[in-house]
């Protein structure tokens, strides 16, 4: 198929104070039309106050095959969590 619209990833900020969150994607010819399209597709019920669109091709994702070597090393570092440290019950606010 020729001339397919490029794909855009859509992010919505539900309200000020919260980060934009990925909600899905949309096909559109340019950024302006992607915003318009995303507005119609993703915010018909007051889902947000702000939209971001990013060309999907611009996103570099980690390889799922690398997930082990990327994320498993965190598993044996329990000392990064506050609950690892035993503080007697009579010590407050810590």
């Amino acid at each position, binding site marked *: 198929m020729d001339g397919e619209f490029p794909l855009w990833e859509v992010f919505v*900020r539900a*309200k*000020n*104070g*919260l*980060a934009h969150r990925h909600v899905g994607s949309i096909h559109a010819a340019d950024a302006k039309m992607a915003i318009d399209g995303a507005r119609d597709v993703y915010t018909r019920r007051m889902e947000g106050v*702000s939209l971001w669109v990013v060309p999907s091709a611009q996103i570099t994702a980690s390889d799922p095959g690398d997930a082990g070597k990327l994320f498993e090393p965190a598993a044996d*570092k329990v*000392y*990064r*969590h*506050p609950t*690892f*440290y*035993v*503080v*007697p019950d*009579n*010590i*407050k*606010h*810590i």
Partner: protein
Amino acid sequence: MYVQDVKQGATNDRPKPMAVEDPSRLAAFEARVAADEFIEPKDWMPEAYRKTLVRQISQHAHSEIVGMLPEGNWISRAPSLRRKAILLAKVQDEAGHGLYLYCAAETLGTSRDEMTAALLAGKAKYSTIFNYPTLTWADIGTIGWLVDGAAIMNQVPLQRTSYGPYARAMVRVCKEESFHQRQGYEAVMALAAGTAEQKAMAQDALNRWWWPSLMMFGPPDDQSPNTAQSMRWRIKRDTNDELRQKFVDVTVPQAEAIGLTIPDPDLVWNEEKGGYDFGTPDWDEFFAVVRGEGPVAMERMEARRKAWDDGAWVRDAAMAHAEKQSQRIAA
């Protein structure tokens, strides 16, 4: 760690009058902030709000980065593998906190390089606490307990600060900070329950870090000209003296519980106010440290400049590599 909001450079650094700005926009902005709404990067904001935030967030970021130095000093000499792994993880977190904060400041239109240049030129401030030396292992535990404890006290309310990206950075930071304080207290607890020599070492560290920790909350309210404006803008949620009182009230029982003595002869429980009365920090010392006269201020700045200069070839090599790769793909 944490921001002190000290004035930097000349006194004309105070927020300027905002007469040049559209009064209706300004009124709308003030009303939004007063209603505890969040301001996001693309929202209109007064120039003085933007400037104050850039100063505060970049000072906060610099504090995280310089704050790695006193603790990094003990990584190779930690008394056990366990303590070493913990300290490494903590220092790594501080680097991360610096990065969250630099990114939050960049949403206000400044750049990482601009902020770094201001730090290295000595124009930007960072928390006075990091201009004190870490002389013994007990200092590392004490920093976690007191310095990170004071940081938490300051940062928890900043999770509701009016500027969205700053508030969100604080949420991440606070989540990680609790480990820092607990590992510190645990390390001090171990020393306090150890030999007489170890206990003396813990007491000595407390003696040296107590007053600088109280100074972390900044000058007394009557000498803090930016406080009123910053509180109105919800950039600050409690005054310096309020936070200092809170810190003393929660920390004194923690010291007592492990048999350590707070080095303040004026410290006494005041039943009426439901808090401790305590002595006055040496504010002359504080302002001297702010001016850059802290015991190891020169050493800290030299270390940062050296890190920047020594890292230049790595930055250059990474950019050259990226360029080469993109040429290869294009070819």
